[in-house]
């Protein structure tokens, strides 16, 4: 009986965790619709999470595109399908690699920062100070971070995909000697608005996942420096795992609206 009970507890606590996240999301929406948006803080957060994440995201995109193109080329070259590298790389970047890798990098960089900052505020009573001054912590801290991520993530994903495709193009045509014209022609022929839409929607959803997981960890941090450390680690781990799992279901669901190929 013991294992069954253990699994039961696990499922129960997971359900409660999802419930907590949903409550946080609900509180955030309430903040937004009750006019509790502080534009200055949103801009500041866009700078922090969007602007300053670019380098990480660009490097991720470029090297992923390059290495993926190389591997694809070696396989396709044997079948004399060199110019198929273009569409394979671009469709994969748009639909999976761009949003997922960008999401994972941002979960590490931004998720850790958010949970550490909010967690420190929690354990040093700064959240209570906010509350005592009649400011809801969710309105002041989570709402601007949420809006900043919803705005920034699609742009970061777009950048990641863009440099990935560019790197693949340069590598394949300039170094591996594939015809530029056919490469571009095939790539444009097989890549459509549906792939772009899928990439950007996924990016936005991952941004939302990162914000709520990290802010929830931070707002519920306990017991001093150790608690903040734990909250930060868990924000990154849970955020990353959620991205991978959510990505699977999102792929399934979005394929109904934006089917791959034609």
């Amino acid at each position: 009986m013991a294992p069954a009970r253990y699994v039961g507890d696990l499922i129960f606590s997971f359900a409660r965790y999802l419930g907590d996240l949903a409550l946080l999301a609900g509180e955030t929406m309430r903040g937004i619709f009750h006019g509790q948006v502080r534009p200055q803080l949103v801009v500041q957060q866009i700078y922090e999470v969007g602007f300053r994440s670019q380098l990480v995201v660009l490097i991720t995109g470029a090297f992923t595109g390059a290495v993926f193109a190389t591997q694809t080329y070696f396989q396709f070259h044997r079948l004399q399908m060199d110019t198929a590298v273009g569409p394979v790389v671009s469709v994969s970047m748009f639909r999976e690699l761009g949003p997922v890798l960008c999401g994972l990098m941002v979960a590490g960089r931004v998720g850790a920062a958010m949970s550490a900052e909010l967690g420190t505020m929690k354990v040093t009573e700064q959240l209570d100070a906010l509350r005592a001054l009649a400011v809801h912590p969710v309105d002041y801290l989570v709402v601007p971070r949420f809006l900043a991520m919803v705005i920034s993530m699609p742009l970061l994903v777009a950048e990641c995909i863009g440099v990935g495709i560019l790197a693949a193009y340069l590598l394949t045509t300039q170094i591996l000697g594939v015809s530029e014209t056919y490469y571009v022609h095939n790539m444009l022929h097989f890549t459509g608005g549906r792939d772009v839409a899928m990439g950007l929607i996924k990016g936005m959803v991952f941004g939302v996942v990162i914000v709520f997981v990290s802010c929830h960890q931070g707002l519920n941090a306990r017991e001093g420096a150790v608690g903040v450390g734990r909250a930060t680690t868990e924000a990154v781990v849970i955020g990353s795992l959620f991205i991978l799992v959510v990505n699977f279901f999102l792929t399934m669901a979005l394929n109904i609206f934006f089917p791959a190929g034609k």
Partner: protein
Amino acid sequence: MTEHAHPSEVITVENLVQTIGGQEILRGFSLKVYQGETLVLLGRSGGGKSVFLRHLIGLMQPVSGTVTVGQEVISGLQERELAKVRRSMGMLFQNGALFDSLTVADNVAFPLRERGETDESVVRAKVEEALQMVDLAGNEGKMPVNLSGGMRKRVALARALVNQPRCMLYDEPTAGLDPIVADSIDLLIRRLQRKLGVTSIVVTHDMKSTFTIADHVALLHEGRCYFYGTCDQLRASTDPVIRDFVEGRSHDEP
């Protein structure tokens, strides 16, 4: 007692019970605070004074019992429903709880800006005035981490006072301050009471300060209100628990 001088209650606490992690902190604490008075709350370290103070502004919800501020029962209210009552109150946290990513000036300006003050010249003037009140003029640009403990506490006091609350909760306002600044804080509390009619609840271990500012004194002991009365009644008491308190500190006075 001197009830005749204090017509109406600002804060009424009835049978407050609070347990944290299985530990009973408050076991039926009752207290009334009257309009315009200064009530000093004494009690042993770790006795639950800070916990009690947090209930008065809705930062903690009691296990049972009620807290009434003005006409409104605030125990059991939702976070967003508490905003109205909180706007009429100010709280000085024991450790200051300054926003460490904001400068001193921005910390003090925070409540002003949050209440919709957009005229920066008004904000600057009020911030300057508040910092002068706590003897910290000229420190506007510093970050909280670069302040001493006592300075941090005084910035927090300026932040709590800048909106001129009707009711102030002070958690050990003079702890960690030099005697001269401590005295000026006492005088500040009195001045706010006289000029603006501010009702104050002051948690302190400082007996000198108690006798300077208190209209009433309450002693929190083992989760209940063990003593309630005036300074004279406190001095005259022969109860050993109370004597320990009054005399335990009297050695520090000279």
